[in-house]
């Protein structure tokens, strides 16, 4: 099989605008998610994640409009996460044009939401977003966190991944809260631990600093690798990541320009 390892960029969006800063030349509006999404598409990104960090529910319509505009202009898969609490939230995002939704806190509060969502919309579009951190009291050594890693959910991360897979989610977005922001590489032990427990795809997230980090994550058992700021600030390009993967005999999709 020649299924390519996927390279994914994550854009944090607040009230329809990209936050955390994106530092590219040639951007008319560095806060416009659609312009960024198009640019990443042209740069050969395989998938995009919009993480909606909007606090107020009144801004949800702004997010839906963003997803609509994205689906209108960017012809690659888009996952939307952040603040998804109900079947109605998922339905609205999928109707707006999202290909997948990632569910985090709401699933910890009520795991049945994952089962209901997978049965209603299909496993292929339901992603568990799992914020994990080393926690000595848990059997696997990794615990589930909430509130951006600040609080423990009191769950074992590997067991939670396995439960979510049993509930029917089609993919796990595995965020290491220890590695996040360090640029010291993905948490390979975390990836291996979850890989050993589930047979659905894993997106490794948190800690990417240099191209070889992405290679290590794929070799640890991830099917996809995600990064945010190092892509946004141009520290590492999509092409560099793909070159590094290819040099290690990992299949990748080479970017192409076919239609004018």
């Amino acid at each position, binding site marked *: 099989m020649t299924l390519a390892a996927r390279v994914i960029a994550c854009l944090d969006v607040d009230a329809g605008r990209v936050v955390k800063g994106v530092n590219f030349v040639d951007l008319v509006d560095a806060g416009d998610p659609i312009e960024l999404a198009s640019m990443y598409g042209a740069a050969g990104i395989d998938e995009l994640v919009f993480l909606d960090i909007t606090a107020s529910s009144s801004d949800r319509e702004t997010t839906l409009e963003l997803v609509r505009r994205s689906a209108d202009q960017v012809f690659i898969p888009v996952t939307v996460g952040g603040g998804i609490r109900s079947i109605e939230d998922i339905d609205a995002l999928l109707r707006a044009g999202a290909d997948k939704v990632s569910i985090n806190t709401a699933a910890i509060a009520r795991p049945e939401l994952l089962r209901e969502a997978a049965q209603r919309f*299909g*496993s*292929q579009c339901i992603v568990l977003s799992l914020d994990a951190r080393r926690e000595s009291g848990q059997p696997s050594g990794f615990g589930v966190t909430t509130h951006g890693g600040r609080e423990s959910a009191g769950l074992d991360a590997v067991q939670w991944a396995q439960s979510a897979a049993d509930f029917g989610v089609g993919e796990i977005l595995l965020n290491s809260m220890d590695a996040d922001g360090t640029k010291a590489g993905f948490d390979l032990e975390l990836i291996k631990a979850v890989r050993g427990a589930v*047979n659905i795809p894993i997106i490794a997230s948190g800690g990417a600093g240099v191209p070889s980090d992405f290679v290590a994550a794929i070799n640890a058992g991830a099917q996809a690798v995600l990064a945010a700021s190092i892509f946004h600030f141009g520290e590492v390009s999509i092409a560099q990541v793909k070159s590094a993967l290819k040099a290690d005999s990992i299949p990748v999709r080479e970017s192409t320009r*076919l239609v004018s």
Partner: protein
Amino acid sequence: MSPTVAVLDYGFGNVRSALRAAEHVGATAILSSDFDTCLNADGLIIPGVGAYAACMQGIDRVRGGAIIDARMVASRPVLGICVGMQIMFEQGIEHGITTRGLGQWPGTVDQLVAPIVPHMGWNNVVPPDSSSLFAGVESELFYFVHSYAVQEWVMTDTDPYQHPPTVTWSDYGAPFIAAVENGPLSAVQFHPEKSGEAGLTLINNWVGTLT
């Protein structure tokens, strides 16, 4: 005049992306469940994601089978995408439950057997020389997301089909059918509307056959 493409609205599938992709390559695209509109459009796209049984219920509700039959009689192109391809076969088996399909082609949609399922991501395909859908993108990768597929082509050469089918294979754990081109009826297991430039080229190739 640009060809009209109807996207069948039966409650399943990423219809927005399918509409925009068709428009992107120059078609006039409309979302519809109206029988005559879907019958008379130059091209008809059958989208589809999710469960086979649920999709078939949706298809039946809008008389999708009758629309496709009528279009076949008139040689009017139809393009099925993902589950919209799977329902063209005789039956689908999901979670041990067998659901009748539209039976345009013989064969069964069954679970993929691979270490990691769903098959999610960009994979290559092997189109035969006779393919027109893949013209110019034979070596490109396309975006798949599915847990089920047709893994055996059971139509024989002696079957009385007017147009000999062109079958394109892919491989994930085992070979499976990635696309079929059979006269006016075409279908793809992947999502061309999500496959970047390669996918848009494929849709352009299909729209180019419409009059």
